[in-house]
Every structure is written in C-alpha cells, then in structure tokens.
C-alpha cells in the first residue's frame, strides 16, 4: 500500500464517519460542524487527485460560505433546537431499505465500469490546471455559454434570496 492509498483510506473513513455523525446528531450546530469535516475531507480528496484549485475553491465556497450560511440559518430558527429533537420518524425503515438498495445498485454499477479499475493517466509536465480552466471557461470552443449562464444564475439566486429573506418594508 502506498502512502497515497493510506491517506485516501483514512480520509474516506473520516468522511463516512462524519457523514454518519452529521445525520444522526440532534444538535444542529454539531451536525453543521460534522458537515464541515465532510467538506474538508472532500477537499483533501481533490488534492489527492492533483486538483489543487478545486480543493481551495471547495474550502472557500463550502466551508467559508455555505457552512457559515447554514449555521446562520440554524440560528434564525426560534427556540431550543439543541434539545432532544427526533431525527427518526415512522418511515425510517423504508428509507433505510431504499437507501441500501440504491447504494447496492451503485456499487454493482461502478464495479462494472472499466474506469473504476483504470489508473489515471499522468499529467503532462508544466501542466497548469488553473490557466487551462481559465481558457476553457471563456473560449467559444469551451464553456463560454455555461460561464455566462452561471453568472445569470447567480444573479437570479441573489434576487430570489433577497425577495424571500428580506423582511417586508413599512413603506410598501
């Protein structure tokens, strides 16, 4: 086993453990902090895949913004959420069954996929993933339409968020 595989196994275990803890905690802040751990683990996986840029963006966007947003949202709720909230209900058994079936099917499908066993090809020397991404984002042969649509989508998200979250004004 190489060092890389060792790190992968360790991080994979941390991610699965934190994910499990996250969905089972009744304390919402604890759940959010476990979620941060999961997201951090994913960033480490990106580093293992030679995608340093995605790793830092993962941390900036998911830990720096989305996790904070979630904790803010938790604090917006009224009353004591830290108490004994029940995280299971009567259809828990059905949910578990469906999830295991889905997971089982996913494992079988991935086992048949030839890419799962193949090794990633080595990157060419002087490969700079950031500038490659930058060129691809704005070149007409690349992703310029999705790039501009993304900005419109972000704009729509911003406007929608303000319309929904802003308290009604007195003068309107």
């Amino acid at each position, binding site marked *: 086993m190489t*060092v890389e595989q060792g790190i992968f196994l360790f991080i994979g275990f941390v991610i699965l453990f934190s994910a499990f803890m996250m969905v089972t905690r009744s304390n919402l*802040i604890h759940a959010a902090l476990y979620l*941060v751990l999961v997201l951090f683990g994913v960033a480490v996986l990106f580093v293992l895949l030679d995608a340093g840029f995605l790793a*830092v*963006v993962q941390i*900036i966007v998911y830990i*720096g*913004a989305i996790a904070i947003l979630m904790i803010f949202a938790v*604090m917006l709720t009224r009353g004591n959420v830290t108490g004994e909230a029940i995280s299971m209900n009567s259809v828990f058994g059905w949910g578990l069954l469906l999830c295991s079936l889905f997971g089982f099917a996913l494992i079988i499908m991935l086992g048949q996929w030839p890419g799962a066993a193949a090794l990633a090809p080595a990157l060419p020397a002087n490969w700079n993933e*950031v500038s490659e991404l930058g060129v691809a984002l704005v070149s007409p042969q690349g992703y310029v339409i999705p790039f501009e649509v993304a900005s419109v989508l972000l704009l729509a998200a911003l406007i929608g968020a303000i319309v929904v979250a802003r308290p009604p004004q007195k003068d309107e």
Partner: protein
Amino acid sequence: MSFWQDPIAVIGQLILDLLHSLNLPEGWIVFIYTLISVVAVASFGLLLVIFLIWLERKVAARFQDRVGPNRAGPFGLLQTFADMVKLVTKEDVVPEKADKLIFNLAPILSLIAVLLIWAVVPFAPGWIGTDLNVGVLYIAAVGSFGILSVLMAGWSSNNKYALLGAFRAVAQLISYEVPMLLTMMIPVLLARGMGMVQMVTVQDTWFIFLAPAAGIIFLVSSIAEIGRTPFDLLEAESELVAGYHTEYTGMKFGMFFAAEFLHAFTVGVLFAILFLGGWRGPGAEEIPILGMFYLMIKGFLGYFVVMWVRSTLPRIRIDHMMAFNWKFLTPVALALLILTALLDKIFAGTALRLPALLGANLVVLALGYWISTLMSRRQAKERTKFKKRPVAKPA
C-alpha cells in the same frame, strides 16, 4: 555560496547530506526533510509573535505619549516572556454550560488558520515553504478556518455576549472578504498567476504603482479582517464584554491573542508580497538573506500602518461599517477589476501600461470618493429635515 549569503540553503544541504548518509529510503528522506522545514517555518512564525507583541505595545505607547513596557529586560524585551509565564500559570476556566470539545478546539483552530498562511510566504529567493500554484486562493481558503473558529468559540461558550459577538464578527469578516478577494485578484491578473514565487518575480515595477487603489482597498479590508480598530466591533468592550472570547481564560485566551497579533503582521507581509514586490530589492537575488531583510522591512511598513490606524481612529458604528464595505469598497473594487482587465489587455507590452493603469486607479479612487461625499451630504440633508427639538439655551 557562502553561509552568510544564504544560510538556509547551506543548512538545508547539510541536513540532506546527513539524511543521505544514513541510507534511509528516499520517501523517508523527503518526509524528514519536509518535517524539519515545516518546524522551522512554524517556529519562525510563533517566535515572531513574541517580538510583535512587544513591538506593538511599544509603538502603541509612543502614539499615546507613554513609554510602554520597560521593566523586564533591556527595553522591556522580556515582557512578553513574563506575560507567557503568567498566562500558562493562570487557571483555565471552562464554563459548566460550555460545549467542551468545541470550546477547546476553537483557540487552536484560530492559531492554525493564521500559521498556515506562512506555508506559502516567499521569504527570499529559494526560501519558501511550498510554492503552491494556487497560492493566493490558498491564503483566502485558510482564512475561512479563522471565520469558523470565531463561530465555534462564540457558540460553544454558551454566553449571550460571546454568541452575539461571534455573529457580528462573522458578518463583518465575510462582508470584508468580498473586497479583499476582489483586490487580491488584481495582482493575480497583473502577474498572470497565483503562485507566490511568480507573484514576486514578475514585480519589476511594484504593483502598488500599477494598482494603488487596489492596494489601499486590500489594506483597509484586511484591517477589518483582523478586527482591529476602527473595525473592532467584534470585541467592542463597552457593548459585548470581550466578544466571542469572553469566556476564555489563561492560555486559551492567549491563543486568540497570539493569533490576532500574528495575523496583523501577516497582513503586512501579504501586502508587501502582493503590492510592494516581496523580497525584491537591490542585491536580493545574489544574497537571499538581504531579501528576507527587505521583506521584513516592507512587512513592518504595512504593520506600522495598521498600528497607526489603530491608535488614531475611533471605532465606527456597525451600520456605517457595513455601508462602507458594500456601498463603497465593493463597487470600487469591482470597477477597478474591470478597468484593470481592460486596460492591461489593450496596453499589454507597451510603454503606456503603467501610466494607463496608474491613471485609471487614481480616477476611480477620486470618483468613488466624490460620489460617496455627495451621498453622505445628501443623507446629512435628509437628517436635518427633522423638526428641531427644543433645547435649553444658555442665558
């Protein structure tokens, strides 16, 4: 290459030779060598804190016409060590209602977040922890752990003041991160790369001359990021006791304290790297130790401005602070980014690049200032529309 010109390279070679002579496998040699350099960089950061606390107290004292620490050791240099001994022997009170694990993790995380920045600081040619190709974004990413540690400290204390302080702090930190990220992008644009080594080596003309307005906005938003006066609303002691670290005592408070001081100097160093040419200076390429000297001088320049502002300006009101960020810094930073991109593409490689960028920066800054004074005047007029209240007049 003699020892006095480049001690780090000489010592590094010595350690490598020693490791090779032990006949260890190649992987272990890399690991041990990396470990030694990590410990070297991290201890440099922590030792710096001890000196910085003394320096800041001396400078703050001078601004207030005092002498500052002068009892322990020559010029009071040993004062910080005395303080450390005091902090270590203080009782460490963990409130009963606190969430123990998160409460204990938060101060450690806050220091980690600041220390990690030093992994990518280029001290001199060849002296760098690791030259990540995403260096500038890495610094921003590490900063988000600092924000997380504030939230963790405030929430786990189970104290209203701490929680309120933490929420105010986080609202301030995330708001000022927007202009900071935008102005960090301008040096990246000018350098055509995010690596910290590249950032320094391309600065034949310092970026402060190509983007002075961006430099000023970066420094201002960085002061807000470290929570120094005039942006110290996160620990406004007259309103919130001590903000998010109200419940912390002893060494755990010391960690927040050390993290804040180190962060303040780190901001100075980052400003030096992004805008003042890092270690660049006469003779720095040949004699790396000179480069280290230049970087520290430039870093202290930025740090001195931070201290100066801290000693001069009063705390601003929270609504003013938010308005200043969202209605002045962010639009100006956006305008600067657009103009820099456009002009740099048009005038790339010509002699007009410097004057065009410099002129655009100054025009944007002047326009922004003019518009904001116009708006504040209009607001002042609206305020005076209220009826005058009867007041007692002196006879």
